[in-house]
């Protein structure tokens, strides 16, 4: 227990909320969260977690900033083109909230290393942009029993789901196999609406923050699909599968093939 006077003032507008107080803020302060991807989703996710006061954030991203990122990835400027996103983002987030620790990992997440890299976290928030890494993150979280807050955006549509190991369906329960390479249009072909990444990333951060604070969350066993054309918010009930190779009776490693760039869907 124990928040400093500066912390109480900094977080005062959330501490005044009826269901949120010192106990909840301390839970956030003591939490360690991995954010996989520091792009379209990773920027709003990590910014929201930082401002809310999550005590330790580790950003995973191997990419460098590209000029085409800048319609949505608001932690970067044109002067950052060519520099490592995770390192830049960690520095900017630390400036936003010096009370917390933010660090960067620029190693690429693979099916071989995900299980070790994502160990020891209280939650993982996934903003990766391709199926091989997305399935690696899902399977690692299922095996390591780490809650996973998943999000994805393509064109004007976004999706989010909250996965609590042993309690809810996982990403692989809904989509046991990745679509064949070429089935899903790449970002370059389909485009990404910047506002949708900010919206979905904020929803992931909201779910993760509430969960870490010990509050109820709304996207357990529920896939939220948002379409910006109509601004429809659709909630689809999903179910845990006993035969799921990630979280079912028996874990069966199932790496998803393809290069990480072959089938990018925005993260």
């Amino acid at each position, binding site marked *: *227990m*124990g*928040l400093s*006077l500066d912390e*109480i*003032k900094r977080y*005062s507008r959330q*501490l*005044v909320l*009826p*269901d949120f*107080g*010192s*106990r909840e803020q301390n839970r956030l302060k003591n939490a360690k969260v991995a954010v996989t991807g520091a792009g379209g989703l990773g920027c709003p996710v990590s910014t929201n977690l930082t401002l809310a006061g999550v005590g330790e954030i580790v950003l995973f991203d191997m990419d460098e900033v590209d000029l085409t990122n800048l319609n949505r990835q608001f932690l970067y400027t044109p002067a950052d083109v060519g520099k490592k996103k995770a390192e830049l983002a960690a520095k900017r987030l630390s400036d936003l909230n010096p009370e917390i620790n933010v660090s960067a990992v620029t190693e690429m997440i693979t099916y071989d290393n995900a299980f070790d890299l994502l160990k020891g976290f209280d939650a993982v928030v996934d903003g990766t942009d391709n199926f091989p890494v997305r399935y690696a993150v899902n399977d690692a979280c299922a095996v390591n029993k780490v809650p996973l807050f998943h999000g994805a955006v393509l064109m004007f549509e976004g999706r989010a789901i909250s996965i609590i190991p042993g309690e809810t369906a996982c990403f692989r329960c809904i989509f046991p196999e990745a679509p064949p390479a070429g089935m899903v249009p790449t970002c370059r072909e389909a485009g990404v609406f910047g506002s949708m990444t900010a919206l979905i990333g904020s929803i992931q951060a909201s779910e993760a923050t509430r969960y870490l604070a010990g509050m109820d969350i709304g996207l357990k066993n529920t896939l939220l699909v948002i379409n910006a054309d109509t601004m429809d918010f659709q909630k689809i009930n999903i179910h845990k599968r006993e035969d799921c190779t990630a979280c079912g009776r028996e874990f069966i490693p199932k790496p998803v093939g393809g290069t990480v760039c072959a089938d990018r869907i925005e993260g």
Partner: protein
Amino acid sequence: MEITEVLDIKGEVCPNTFVYTKIKLEDLAYSGGGILKVIIDHPPACENIPRSLKGEKINYELLEVNKIGNTYELLIKAPSVED
């Protein structure tokens, strides 16, 4: 009446007066309960703090409000609550 802790927040205005009081009362409630004396010099807080505390899950009890010169002392009881 035995005061468990004193919170001197003279110079603070709403809503900070409420936030500091709420956090101190929660810490008190989760560590066995007790009576908190809050010292303020922002008159609206005398009404705002007790009113806002009514919206909390923990059932706090306003015992006294005393005016001493230009300052006010609120005595508030925090019950013992399991963390």
